[in-house]
């Protein structure tokens, strides 16, 4: 594992999530978790594009694979490392986002939060225009209602990921 990959593994650990990339939901959760961690101020260094399921980083996909390859042979080089205090504190503050027990529910929730955040953060839409956010998501075949979008905005603000 390189230093960036160790940062990813420690971030996932700090959010009490398992490091899994076996299924589609697993990989989606991984992508959106790292996106939201970066939005919270953890500078992991991944550049996200907008794809079919919202923000997506191809280089994170490569790193997830490299980390999983190491873990599959019992080699976890993040052991003995810790994140800096400021980053740990920031992750502590957003841990509540990731508490859904069911993986598919967590995946859906994170996809919505990350997508809404990306659209607003990259100035694609205004945060007050919830109907436009909803219609943008619909254009990408996302089954999220305006109520869902409003809920996501509230949650992003509550966790300090968007300005209140």
């Amino acid at each position, binding site marked *: 594992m*390189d*230093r*960036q*990959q*160790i*940062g990813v593994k*420690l*971030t996932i650990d700090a959010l009490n999530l398992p490091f899994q990339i076996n*299924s*589609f*939901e697993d*990989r*989606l959760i991984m992508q959106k978790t790292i996106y939201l961690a970066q939005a919270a*101020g*953890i*500078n*992991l*260094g*991944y*550049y996200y*594009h*907008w*794809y*079919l*399921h919202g923000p*997506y980083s*191809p*280089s994170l*996909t*490569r790193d997830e*694979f*490299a980390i999983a*390859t*190491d873990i*599959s*042979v*019992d*080699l976890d*080089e993040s052991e*003995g*490392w*810790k*994140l*800096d205090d*400021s*980053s740990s504190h920031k992750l502590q503050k957003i841990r509540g986002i990731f508490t859904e027990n069911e993986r598919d529910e967590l995946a859906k929730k994170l996809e919505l939060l990350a997508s809404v955040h990306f659209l607003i953060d*990259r100035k694609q839409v205004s945060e007050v225009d919830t109907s436009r956010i909803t219609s*943008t998501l619909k*254009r*990408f075949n996302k089954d999220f209602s305006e109520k869902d979008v409003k809920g996501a905005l509230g949650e992003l603000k509550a966790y300090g990921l968007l300005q209140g």
Partner: protein
Amino acid sequence: MVSSKGDGAEKLVVDSIHGDIHLTNRELEVIDTVSFQRLRHLKQLAMSQMAYPNATHTRFAHSLGVFAIMARITRIAKASGQINLSPEQEERLRLAALLHDIGHYPYSHLMEQIDKIRLIKEQVEVPDAGEKTIDKSGAPYPEHDFVGTLIITKQRDLIEALGGKRRAKEIANLFGPKRPTESKKSLQLSKLVHSSLDMDRLDYLLRDSQATGVPYGQIDINYLLSNLRVSPSGAVGISEKAIPAAEQFLIARFFMHRTVYYHKTTFGMEEACRQLIHRLRAQGKYEIPKDGKEIEELVTSEALGTFTDAYVDEIVHKAIINNDDEVIQTLAKSIQKRRPPKLLKEVPVLGSVEQSHEPHKGTILKQNCKHYLYNLAKDFNIPLEQFILCETPPLRLERRGPLVFAEDAMKTNLEEEEELIKVFVTGEDEPKSLVDIPYSLISRCAGLFFQSYRLYVIYEGDDKNSVISELCNKVKGWDKA
């Protein structure tokens, strides 16, 4: 060589791989900007010329090559009537291909990745070492894709050559985020810039193979391109009869990595250089950008034109003439005088992504280095920092293995799926992934990955040969528990 075609509407460049490349005036204006000319001073294969003396070709030539392939693809797609591109869409695709590498750092991935490295003291057990901390509060050096977007949208010469800010943004978006307004078919073509069967790889395999003299990268580009098809929904793939050409393309990439890109000398030299720059940056020396913010400032300023391989060469030179640190001196001299790190032990591993494993010989080497390298360095009186422990990234033939169950197919990550090579099976309108064609060699091998674990040392004592030989003997059995 650039020459006028006679009517003044087009210019002609002759390329050693693709032959005649025709450029419009706008494309020539883009090429003639200082921002683009910088690519003449970035070697495509970074330090590979240390092992293959003729591998001095540049990102400039490669960018023109990728452009030539995009021009051929759009021409084929239009002529076959499979796609209807407006002149503006076609121009955007050609320019996006031309500019796809505009954001590369000096020595490409070498400098881009200096935030990623771990120094040897962070990899092995050292007495009284405290807890190791990863500081993620500052911005790391950004990926070259992002740097490319910044250069296209912020450098005045490129904005002018591209026809204004709005057009510059549209082109940057083609190798960046998906836009709901773009037609699906032109988006699919733009994805050919970065997918398994992408024009980036089509060009670099041929170009690198020719420059290094290593024949494994010779792919059948003409057959692949003439068998490209676009489905009614806009998916791009190859016809079934071109499967052998696609398989050979993936295998060529695999062998070029093993032979050229992961070459022991190149890999060792680049790792040594990365460690050198990492250490110098920590010293605050030679105005090396301290974080991602400073990189962003540099690449959007007029200093961009100086951000070339020579930028790193100068840092190496300065380190030799005015740095007192013994390890820095050793690393810098190793690079400038071409005294590559000596490979003490290499453990190649062919693994499977679909099964979990017992620790293999590569992980055992790492564990043994972790436990015993400190004492070995002490016994030989060589600074621990002159050892380099590293591994190549895991290399796969294709980005995922075959899907065994229908439910897996339903849940495949669409982003990853789009990057796979697609095949139009006879009689079907929409293509399927090559890894899912049961009689394809790739469907059998896509679950495998190759990785190589290496331990190097940089040592320049008078008794060099005998010390290296003795060290090799000491670590000979370090791949065993």
